[in-house]
């Protein structure tokens, strides 16, 4: 993905205060992109690509069922869970940053948030966007309060929680990267299994219901997949920006095709390319939060798609391509 390079800093070693281990022969961005950045970097990048692909594919269905901003609320709602996981691990005498505790806590509070949004939107007269925004704000605020408690505790490792905000590849353990990649592959497998049902419900829920498909169960499956992507993406992309991996690749993919299967595949490829490129840049510039770099790479691909995507892109439309005209009519 040469596109990714445009957002990277020039491939020179960091000039100031780099960690001792980075002083020796820094591999260039090109070498890292070609998987020559050392074993750990390769594992992290492949894990990132798997996550990006899963997020891109899940995002298509989240967007078609208008759940894009719900994903943002679920992501922010993981913060109190991460903090509670930290506190639980410390209480049990374990290091606070144990990944299983943090992810289990994150999944638990995100689930509670999803339930709250559903209850508010269905049982009160508040519209869904109000439910989403108020749940996002209240849960995230509860997370901030818990973090401020953690900061005053006399245990180590508090600083490590920062990576869950904006993501980081630096300091990621090989085991963590492999675990996350396995989860991402599992999500992709579930998606492939449910593909027909997901497409049917996403494009024509009434038709699907009339033919006896369990629309509510499939909608729930979409929310569950979104939740899984959010939790798995926390370590790499961070909870503030993970929603971008669910929103930007599908938006970009719509400019390349009008067919559901192609859009999903293209979205997965764009998601994978963004995460892969972002992780590579982040290996060269460890100071930059990985999540932010991945999002900028994704946005660059989105901008290119808007301009030249054959299905609905601005240039093909301006020059009157028949496929573009069809896309506009659709």
């Amino acid at each position: 993905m040469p596109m990714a390079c445009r957002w990277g800093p020039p491939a020179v070693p960091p000039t100031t205060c780099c960690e001792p281990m980075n002083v020796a022969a820094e591999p260039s961005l090109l070498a890292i992109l070609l998987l020559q950045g050392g074993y750990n970097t390769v594992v992290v990048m492949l894990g990132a690509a798997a996550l990006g692909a899963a997020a891109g594919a899940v995002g298509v269905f989240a967007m078609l069922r208008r759940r894009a901003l719900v994903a943002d609320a679920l992501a922010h709602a993981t913060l109190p869970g991460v903090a509670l996981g930290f506190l639980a691990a410390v209480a049990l005498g374990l290091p606070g940053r144990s990944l299983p505790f943090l992810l289990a806590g994150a999944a638990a509070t995100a689930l509670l948030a999803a339930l709250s949004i559903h209850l508010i939107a269905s049982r009160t007269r508040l519209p869904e966007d109000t439910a989403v925004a108020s749940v996002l704000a209240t849960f995230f605020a509860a997370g901030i309060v818990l973090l401020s408690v953690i900061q005053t505790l006399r245990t180590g490792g508090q600083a490590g929680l920062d990576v869950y905000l904006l993501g980081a590849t630096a300091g990621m353990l090989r085991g963590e990267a492999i675990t996350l990649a396995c989860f991402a592959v599992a999500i992709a497998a579930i998606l492939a299994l449910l593909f027909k049902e997901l497409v049917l419900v996403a494009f024509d829920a009434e038709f699907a219901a009339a033919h006896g498909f369990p629309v509510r169960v499939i909608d729930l499956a979409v929310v569950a997949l979104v939740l899984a992507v959010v939790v798995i993406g926390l370590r790499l992309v961070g909870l503030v920006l993970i929603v971008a991996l669910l929103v930007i690749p599908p938006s970009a993919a719509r400019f390349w095709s009008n067919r559901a299967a192609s859009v999903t595949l293209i979205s997965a490829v764009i998601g994978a390319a963004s995460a892969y490129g972002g992780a590579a840049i982040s290996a060269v510039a460890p100071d930059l939060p990985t999540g932010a770099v991945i999002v900028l790479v994704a946005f660059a691909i989105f901008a290119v798609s808007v301009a030249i995507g054959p299905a609905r892109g601005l240039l093909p439309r301006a020059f009157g391509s028949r496929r573009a005209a069809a896309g506009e009519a659709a």
Partner: protein
Amino acid sequence: MIFTFLQIDLPAMLVGTLAALVCALVGNFLVLTRQSMFGDAVGHVVLPGIVIAYVVTGTTATWVMLAGAAAAALAAAGLVEFFRRVAGVEPSAALGTVFTAMFALGVVLLEQTGVARTTFDVHHILYGNVEAAIWPAAVDFSSLVDPQALAALPPQIGRLAFGLAVVLAVIVVCFKELRLVSFDPVFAATLGLSPRLVGTVIVALAALAAVVSLEAVGVILVVAMMVCPPAAARMLTDDLATQVRISAVIALASGVLGYAAAAFLPAAFGSPISLGAAGTIAVTAGLFQLAAMLFGPKRGAPRRA
């Protein structure tokens, strides 16, 4: 005791409460026009504006920061409209794309320009730092009427008071128009009232409220205050004027109680921990909303999507 209250607690409480009030007032109209996520979006997009304004001018003067934030908000609005109308991207996806990309740009600029640790802290922009407002000029209660001491109040308070005055004035003067467009845009249009124009006024007011509050209290308190007090008030009444008043009372109560919980609650239990006031104020507002949703008389019938 009184001394520390005046110097430390009063200004911080005032900042938190004023921000809560200005955001909640505007929030009533955001909730009714289905734009509840607006605070979240604006809170994220102004980051690159603030950073670029600082890098270009080298100062953190108020008007520079406000200009940068306003420019970024305008740029974001333009981009969202462009992707929606020209490129045909679904509205919430266009919003999600633009605000995450701009926030990411802001974060990268922060790190690349080296201001991350010296001038700005991304955590303060997200979490808020209500406690930063202090009033060292206060000596005792006579300071409250001493013009010289009052002039040394933290500058955030002046900005928030200005924002509050503008928001209040517009709501009072244009209340009929705002109400009509919020509840029945189609009918409003038949009366010759442009829903687009009134909608723009609402968004502009919300942007003003967000910009004056952001630097003082952080993104999350802005989002919470734009949604929770109005949503709670909506569970209690059908009348818009009453709803706006109730939301203001809830915002005030959240500001005062939330700050008190952060500053005094741990000490009251003899605990050495300290709580972030922006977080406790937002959680208090969320609890008010929860109570209103559970017990309010106007919870309403289930709504079919």
